C-alpha cells in the first residue's frame, strides 16, 4: 500500500515558477558594510543602523541552535545575498499603475490580484517581493479608520516613535541566533498599528515571495493593537522551485495592549524541495506576542511548505486574564522536516491558553511538535489545555512530540493530550468502496483530521487552506 500512497502524495508545486524581473541584488556575503548598505538603501535613521549593528555583533558570538529534531548541512552565511529588489522599485511607484506589470502578473499567478477592484472584498494586502514591499492595497480606506498598514521600511521613516517603542520589545535582538540575524539584516515586512478601540474594518494580509536565486528573505512584521482594538492578519508565502536551499529567517512581533485582540493566521507554502530532498526553503522563524490585561492573541498556522521548518509562535501572557491560543496544522511529505510548536508563558493571574496541534507526516518526512507551557509564580488560577495529534500516512515517515511543562504555581492547571493515528487501509478501503478515488479519500481523511484548526481560520482562507492541503496531497495517480 505504501507505494501507492507515496504516489498519491507526490505532488507538483504550483507556485514553483520563476519571474523574469530585473533585480538589484547585493553580492553574496555578510559583514558590517553590508548592513550599512542595507540601512542606506532604506534611508534609515541612525538609531536603526546602530540597532542593526548591535544585533550583528551579538550574532557573531552566537551559535546556531542544534536542539531541534532536524538534520541539514551547515548553512554558509557568507554564500547568501542579503538584499535583492526589483530594479523598477528604485523610484518607488506611487500607485499600482507604476508597478512593473511582470510583478503584478507574478502575484496574479499566485492567485493574489493586487488591483483593488479585483481583490477579495475586505482584505488589504501588502506584497513583499524578495527584500522589498511592492505594493500595499486599500491604504486610504484603512487610514480613514486610523489604521496604519504599511511596509516596515516606510514605518521607520514615518512613524519612528511607534517603531522605536515596540521593535525588539517582544523578541529582543539577542533572543536567538536566527532572530539576531534577522535584526541585523531585515529588509522589509509589514507594520500594523490599530488605534485605541478600533476594530480593523478589513482583514489585513501580507504575501511574501522569494524570487531571486541565492537570496535570503529576512522580513520583519510588527503588529501593535492598542487598547480595546481588534485585528485579523494573514500571511502567505511561496517561492520558486530551485535546486539550492534558500534561507528564510523572519521575525514577527505582536503587541496586544489591554483588552485588545490579535488573530494572526499563516498559510505557509514555501517550496519544500523535490522528493529526494534537493532544494527547498529553510524556514527559521521567531514569532512571539505579548498580551497585556484581558488581551488575546490567537496564532493559527497551516504549514505545508519548506524543506525545514523551525517555528514556535508563542504568547507571553503578561496581563491578568489574558488569553493565548495556538492552532496548527503542519503537513510534511517527501524529505521535509518540521520542528514546530509553541510556547505559552503564563505570568498574569487567570491567564488561559489553548494549544491544538495537528501534525501530518507522509513520505519519508519527519514532523515534530515541540511545545512549552510555563506557569510563572504569579499565574494564580492559570489554565492550559494542549491537544497534540499526529497522523501518519504510509510507513516511512515519523512523528515526534516534545512537550515541556514548567509550573511554579500550584494553583495553575495544565492538561495535555496526545494521540498518534494512521490513515488506515480500512479507512481508505471504506472511502473507495463508496466510490471515492484514493486521492479524494486521503484528502478527505486528512481534512477531517484538521477540522478543529481550519475552523479557526478566517472564512476565505479556511477554503484556501483546505484546497492547499488537497493540492499538497495531490499525486501523479492515473
Amino acid at each position, binding site marked *: 500500500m505504501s507505494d501507492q500512497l507515496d504516489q498519491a502524495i507526490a505532488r507538483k508545486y504550483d507556485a514553483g515558477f520563476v519571474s523574469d524581473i530585473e533585480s538589484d541584488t547585493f553580492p553574496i556575503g555578510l559583514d558590517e558594510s553590508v548592513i550599512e548598505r542595507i540601512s542606506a538603501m532604506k534611508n534609515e535613521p541612525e538609531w536603526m543602523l546602530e540597532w542593526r549593528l548591535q544585533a550583528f555583533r551579538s550574532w557573531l558570538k552566537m551559535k546556531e541552535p542544534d536542539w531541534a529534531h532536524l538534520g541539514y548541512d551547515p548553512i554558509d552565511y557568507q554564500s547568501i545575498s542579503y538584499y535583492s529588489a526589483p530594479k523598477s522599485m528604485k523610484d518607488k511607484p506611487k500607485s499600482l499603475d507604476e508597478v512593473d506589470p511582470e510583478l503584478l502578473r507574478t502575484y496574479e499567478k499566485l492567485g493574489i490580484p493586487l488591483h483593488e477592484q479585483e481583490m477579495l472584498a475586505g482584505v488589504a494586502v501588502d506584497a513583499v517581493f524578495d527584500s522589498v514591499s511592492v505594493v500595499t492595497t486599500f491604504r486610504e480606506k484603512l487610514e480613514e479608520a486610523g489604521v496604519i498598514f504599511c511596509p516596515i521600511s516606510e514605518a521607520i521613516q514615518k512613524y519612528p516613535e511607534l517603531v522605536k517603542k515596540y521593535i525588539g520589545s517582544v523578541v529582543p535582538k539577542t533572543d536567538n541566533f536566527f532572530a539576531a540575524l534577522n535584526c541585523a539584516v531585515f529588509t522589509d515586512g509589514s507594520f500594523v498599528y490599530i488605534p485605541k478601540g478600533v476594530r480593523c474594518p478589513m482583514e489585513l494580509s501580507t504575501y511574501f515571495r522569494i524570487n531571486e536565486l541565492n537570496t535570503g528573505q529576512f522580513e520583519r512584521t510588527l503588529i501593535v493593537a492598542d487598547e480595546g482594538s481588534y485585528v485579523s492578519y494573514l500571511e502567505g508565502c511561496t517561492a520558486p522551485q530551485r535546486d539550492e536551499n534558500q534561507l528564510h529567517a523572519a521575525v514577527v512581533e505582536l503587541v496586544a495592549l489591554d483588552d485588545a485582540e490579535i488573530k494572526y493566521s499563516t498559510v505557509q507554502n514555501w517550496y519544500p524541495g523535490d522528493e529526494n530532498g534537493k532544494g527547498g526553503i529553510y524556514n527559521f522563524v521567531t514569532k512571539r506576542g505579548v498580551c497585556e490585561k484581558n488581551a488575546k492573541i490567537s496564532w493559527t498556522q497551516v504549514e505545508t511548505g519548506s524543506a525545514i521548518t523551525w517555528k514556535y509562535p508563542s504568547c507571553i501572557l503578561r496581563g491578568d486574564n489574558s488569553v493565548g491560543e495556538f492552532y496548527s496544522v503542519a503537513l510534511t511529505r517527501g524529505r521535509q522536516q518540521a520542528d514546530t510548536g509553541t510556547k505559552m508563558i503564563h505570568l498574569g493571574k487567570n491567564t488561559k491558553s489553548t494549544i491544538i496541534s495537528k501534525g501530518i507526516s507522509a513520505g519519508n518526512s519527519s514532523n515534530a511538535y515541540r511545545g512549552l507551557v510555563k506557569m510563572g509564580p504569579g499565574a494564580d488560577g492559570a489554565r492550559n489545555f494542549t491537544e497534540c495529534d499526529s497522523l501518519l500516512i504510509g510507513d516511512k515517515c515519523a512523528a515526534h512530540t516534545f512537550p515541556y511543562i514548567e509550573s511554579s504555581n500550584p494553583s495553575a492547571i495544565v492538561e495535555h493530550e496526545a494521540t498518534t493515528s494512521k490513515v488506515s*487501509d480500512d479507512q481508505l*478501503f471504506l*472511502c*473507495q468502496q463508496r*466510490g471515492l478515488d484514493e486521492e479524494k479519500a486521503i484528502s478527505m481523511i486528512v*481534512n477531517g483530521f484538521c477540522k478543529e484548526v481550519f475552523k479557526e481560520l478566517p472564512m476565505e482562507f479556511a477554503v484556501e487552506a483546505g484546497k492547499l492541503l488537497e493540492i499538497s496531497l495531490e499525486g501523479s495517480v492515473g
Partner: protein
Amino acid sequence: MMLTIKDLQASVEDKTILKGLNLTVNAGEVHAIMGPNGAGKSTLGYVLSGREGYEVEQGKVDFDGHDLLDMEVDERAQAGLFLAFQYPVEIPGVSNMEFMKESVNTVRKARGEEPYTAAEFLKIAKAASQQVNLPLDFLKRGVNEGFSGGEKKRNEIMQMILLEPKLCILDESDSGLDIDALKVVADGVNSQRDGKRSFIVVTHYQRLLDFIEPDFVHILADGKIVKSGGPELAKEVEASGYAWLDNGDATATQGATA
C-alpha cells in the same frame, strides 16, 4: 445476469482461501451465503469489492457486463457494487453528511446523473436516516465516530439506501445486533428489494433470514459452495449446525443438486 462467478480462487497472505467458487446471481434475487467460521465468507465480499491484499489466483467474475476483476475498488463501487462492512471503520472529523454527499455524487456522476445539490441531498439523507432509525445528529457526526455497534450497522444500511447500488453484499450485517436493531437492518434491506437490485447476504446464523427471506441459500465451506438450496436449507443448518460438513463430501454433493 447480475453476477457470474466462475471457478474463483483467491488467497490472502499466500494462503488460499477461496478454492474454486461458482455462483450466479440474477437481477432481483437474494442469495444467502452461510457457513462455518473461516470458510471464506468475508473473503468473498472483499475479493468481489477489490480489497488490496486479496489476490485472485484464477477464475472470472462478470458483474453486469463488466469484467469485475479488472476494475479498481472505486470503479466497482461506481458501477453499482456495494459492500456493507462487518466492522465499519471510523473516520474522525469527516461528517457523515459530507462523506455521503461526496460518495453519492461521485457515483451519480459515474452513472451519468446530475449531482444532488446540498438542499436535495439533505432531504434524501434525512429520509434515509429516519428509515434506519438513526437520529438526525448522526448525519453531522464524524463517520461512525463514537457510534455503537448497532448504530454503525444501521449507518451502513443508510449508505446503501443512498447509493442505490445494483448489487449489495451484506457481510454479517446481523452480528452483534439485538432483535430490534436486526429488524431495522432487515426492514432497510427489504425496502430496497425492487425486483432489479440483487443481494448477497453473508451470515453465520439463520436468524437474519427470518427477516430477509432469501431466494437461494448456499453453504460455503473450505472455500467452495458445497450445498445450495432454497430457504429451507437455512432451517436445516439452524437445526443441525455445520457439523455435518465434516461427514465427508457425499452428503454435501447430494444436497447441492437442489
